[in-house]
């Protein structure tokens, strides 16, 4: 089955009000080209589930978001995401704030088709107080109470990977695939952008196949976009773009705000965007971060 498609074809399958999971972590390996295609669309009222970075900030700033399910939204070296902050401080969005591990459990429950996973995480904190939809239940096996972390069912997941073939075999060669395998499993449809499209034979080497973290039946569509994670990183291919993130964060303090950022960078297509940020070779040349 050939699953290759364009970013525009992905966005054409999205509807107002959908719940969309976004892979990656903070400023790392975010499907930013697909996010930018949403910014160019008239989609609205989305619920976003993510270990958030600029993906969440930009979608909030563009008025695409009704609700964010999050444990953090951060650019790491810029700890506070400027536009998520604005959205929260103006009361513009609903939130479901949970622990990082609770999100993993919610994605697993959705993947496994079960309504919840019991955990002690969240007990005694404002996570249970501020989320009336998260129930605390008695156990049939002991005398303790437990948080019943509900399944986080996703209509769609968007993920960026290093390499994929047209059949949806996806490889993440960087040191961490984060929770992307669970995002892929928790969603009805998963669309994956890849830095490089490869032939299936590439995976015949077991060392390469070992870096495939979910089976291809979980992948609905594959969109080849070299540099498609920019300004987030796609280790080992490129790091995150620190000057770009600084300019993005600075735009939140300017009168023109996010519109000013978009006027400068977004463009009408990914080709225009990449031209505005110096081209794919410049993206691929960005140094990896040292932790």
């Amino acid at each position: 089955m050939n699953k290759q498609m364009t970013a525009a074809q992905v966005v054409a399958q999205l509807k107002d009000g959908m719940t969309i999971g976004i892979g990656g972590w903070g400023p790392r390996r975010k499907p930013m080209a697909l996010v930018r295609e949403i910014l160019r669309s008239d989609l609205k009222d989305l619920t976003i589930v993510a270990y958030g970075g600029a993906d969440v900030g930009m979608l909030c700033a563009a008025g695409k978001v009704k609700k964010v399910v999050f444990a953090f939204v951060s650019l790491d070296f810029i700890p506070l995401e400027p536009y998520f902050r604005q959205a929260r401080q103006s009361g513009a969005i609903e939130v479901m704030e949970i622990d990082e591990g609770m999100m993993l459990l919610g994605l697993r429950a959705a993947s496994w088709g079960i309504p919840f996973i019991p955990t002690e995480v969240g007990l005694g904190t404002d996570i249970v107080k501020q989320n009336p939809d998260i129930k605390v239940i008695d156990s049939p096996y002991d005398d303790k109470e437990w948080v019943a972390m509900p399944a986080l069912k996703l209509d769609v997941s968007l993920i960026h990977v290093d390499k994929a073939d047209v059949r949806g075999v996806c490889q993440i060669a960087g040191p961490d695939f984060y929770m992307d395998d669970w995002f892929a499993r928790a969603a009805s449809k998963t669309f994956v952008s890849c830095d490089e499209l490869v032939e299936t034979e590439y995976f015949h080497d077991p060392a390469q196949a070992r870096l495939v973290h979910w089976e291809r039946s979980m992948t609905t569509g594959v969109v080849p976009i070299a540099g498609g994670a920019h300004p987030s990183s796609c280790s080992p291919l490129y790091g995150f773009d620190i000057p770009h993130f600084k300019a993005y964060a600075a735009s939140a303090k300017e009168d023109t705000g996010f519109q000013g950022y978009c006027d400068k960078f977004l463009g009408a297509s990914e080709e225009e965007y990449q031209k505005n940020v110096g081209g794919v070779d410049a993206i691929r040349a960005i140094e990896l971060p040292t932790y």
Partner: protein
Amino acid sequence: MTAATDYTLAELCIVAASQAFADDGEVLATGIGVVPRLAASLAMKTSNTDLMMTDSEAWMLSEPNPLGPRPADFVPSTESWMGFSRIFDNVWSGKRHAMLGPTQIDRFGQSNTSALGGTYQKPKTMMLGARGFPGNSISHPNSFFVPAHNTRVFMDGECDFVSSIGYNPARLPKGHNLDDVDIRLVITDLCVMDFGGPDHQIRLVSLHPGVTAEEVQDNTGYPVHIPADVPVTAAPTQEQLAIIAALDPHNQRAHQIKDNPPGNRS
């Protein structure tokens, strides 16, 4: 072991904070931020060589990495993969001790990393979010590092948002008891504290050289239990300072406490 006379407050805090890990045995030590990371690294090199540590990305190391840019020929002592999803398996096993720096710590040891002021629907200042604090606090021991000890951090009343469980009877989950919560040391620019006072009250453990118990109380928004004899925080040894310098070749520790004061302020 020669006690140093010339050391910075950051170095004193690193050494004091490293004590938190000394008796942990074989657990994952996670220090977020320069001082906690150097404290965990120092402990792994000296007082507790059984500690485990990651490279802050996705690999476990048998030797802590130096902070900041490293020479091109540097080879990290990788011993296993430890991506973020596996971190949670470790967290929930309890075999971890994290040292973190929340924005607020209330009298119950509850902490806040999420939001300040306003309402929950519309906070005055949005911060990071709860991150992993809820899970950390109920799963394994935790310590705190506070670079500026004041009444905004150690505030009167309850945290604006409670990210981590503490010793608050009103929030105690059914079937749990307060001793299940395990907050170890609180290291600040003034002193070392723990929650070992009566009924888990915050307690002064040691005063940094030149700091008085009154100063600590004046900068804490709730009563601190002050024992009759409070020792002075032990000065770093020359050996410890040498290890810290090797772990932090770019001297990032000089930028962690305002104006990088000397360790002895008497």
